[in-house]
């Protein structure tokens, strides 16, 4: 597999505090990499290091198989980015803001209109950014990151400050860029729900350490399915099922059947009916990705 970003042992310390520790991040080509973690986990610090804004305390970063330390400028020519709160020049119009960046990137002027159209800011192009809403500023930041049609997009919390429809638009835009134009995208977020529809690979960062990195499908597999049974006299029913050697749980007056295949579910219901219990409800309970994510990050956070 070809990796667009590959870090090894990436560490950043601020004085005695370790913000990021021993990160081995691998972003495969053409994937949308969801970079997840609670606030303060070190996502932004990592992204800053990926863009050469901060120097790692130790470890290396390779982007496009090139050493970032040595070839920062040639790498950045192919990278579009948006870091944290959008940066802009409030006294300039949206168009002028993009023009300031375009001059440095050296791309044709018509790209400005194209990216403004892409993020839906064409109408506000000649208004001062001072008067933009947070969502509009965020879109302007996304537009700026797309000016030079980069192969790699690194976006730090790109949906921050957007309303639900705006979030959906951005998601669709990113999906399109990844699927149709084959761009590799890294998006960070503290909410899995924001990226679980676009991300194909997930990295979970917690307290500066990467605690999970795999495809989103692999993460979904961890989502265990349970069958919830509401029956008359739950406790007695639970004992009956236990005595038949089934993996069951009793919680809040209901019986939970773990790792339930269709056969197991049918068997459990049959046993209950045979033993004279009334079965009111049989429901499938699937823990969402969000719950898995929370579980992953919870243990550590409670300490």
């Amino acid at each position: 597999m070809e990796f667009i970003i590959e870090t090894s042992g990436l560490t950043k310390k601020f004085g005695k505090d370790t913000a990021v520790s021993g990160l081995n991040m691998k972003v495969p080509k053409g994937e949308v990499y969801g970079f997840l973690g609670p606030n303060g986990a070190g996502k932004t610090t990592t992204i800053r290091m990926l863009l050469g804004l901060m120097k790692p305390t130790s470890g290396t970063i390779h982007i496009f198989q090139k050493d970032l330390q040595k070839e920062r400028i040639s790498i950045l020519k192919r990278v579009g980015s948006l870091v944290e709160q959008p940066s802009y020049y409030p006294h300039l119009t949206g168009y002028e803001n993009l023009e300031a960046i375009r001059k440095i990137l050296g791309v044709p002027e018509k790209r400005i209109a194209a990216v403004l159209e892409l993020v839906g800011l064409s109408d506000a192009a000649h208004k001062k950014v001072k008067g933009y809403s947070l969502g509009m500023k965020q879109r302007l930041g996304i537009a700026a990151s797309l000016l030079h049609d980069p192969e790699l997009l690194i976006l730090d919390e790109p949906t921050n400050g957007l309303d639900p429809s705006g979030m959906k638009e951005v998601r669709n835009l990113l999906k399109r860029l990844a699927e149709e134009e084959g761009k590799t995208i890294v998006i960070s977020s503290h909410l899995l729900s924001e990226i679980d529809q676009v991300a194909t690979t997930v990295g979970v960062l917690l307290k500066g350490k990467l605690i999970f990195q795999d495809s989103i499908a692999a993460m979904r597999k961890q989502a265990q399915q349970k069958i919830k049974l509401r029956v008359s006299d739950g406790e007695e029913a639970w004992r009956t099922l236990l005595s038949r050697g089934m993996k069951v749980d009793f919680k809040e007056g209901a019986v939970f059947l773990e790792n339930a295949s269709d056969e197991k579910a049918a068997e459990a219901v049959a046993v209950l009916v045979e033993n004279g219990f009334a079965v009111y409800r049989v429901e499938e309970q699937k823990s969402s990705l969000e719950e898995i994510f929370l579980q992953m990050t919870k243990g550590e956070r409670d300490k």
Partner: protein
Amino acid sequence: MMGPLLRTEFLKIKRKGFWLLTFLGPFGVVALQMVNYGVRKDYLFQQSDDRWAYYLHNVHDFTPLALVLGIVILTSLMASIENETNAWKQLMSLPVSKYSVYLSKFTVLSFFLLAASFLLMVFTLLYGIFLDLGPDIPYADLARYSFYPFFASLPVLALQLWAAVIFRNQGIPVALGVFGVILTYSSYSLPDWLIWKWPTLMNGWNEPVLNVLWGLLAGCALYVFGMIDFARRDVK
């Protein structure tokens, strides 16, 4: 790389009042002499046989102050453009070297200060002619008094630019700047090695060109120090 960066810098300072300040500085310096000569022209004419030289000297009394003050304001304004929404991180994520970003800021500031020096020369000349100071216009001295202070103040410019981009809190560079203005103001009684004295073109040898040389040397040294320090730091 520098061409596009400079064009970008000139675009970013739009509507920030750079041109207005560049006009106001030299205009203010000459306007003070308009008041001075307006009120007591006859008295001032009696002070010296060489009316042009005396007039240039009077103008030059205020040039260093205006220049140092102008440097403080322009550098802080320049840095605030990036500091305001922390646009440093966006700028530095572009394929540019930190050195060239720093150089572009320094170049733009130098350009405006040179423009102000040029305007000072023009205003001084025009008002001098208006005062009818005599037929022998000392063009060489006029140019010297207009441009020497700029070169002599390069170390102050390098120092203020460094302070303005390093500290997010602009109170620090502005405080340093006010301190500098005070030193320039009281430079008559200060030692020659203080960079804030140099724009006054005073020194123990009575050779204004020395201040220009020191200014260029120390200016380069402080500029290089500032640029290296700027590049070494993480972008917040």
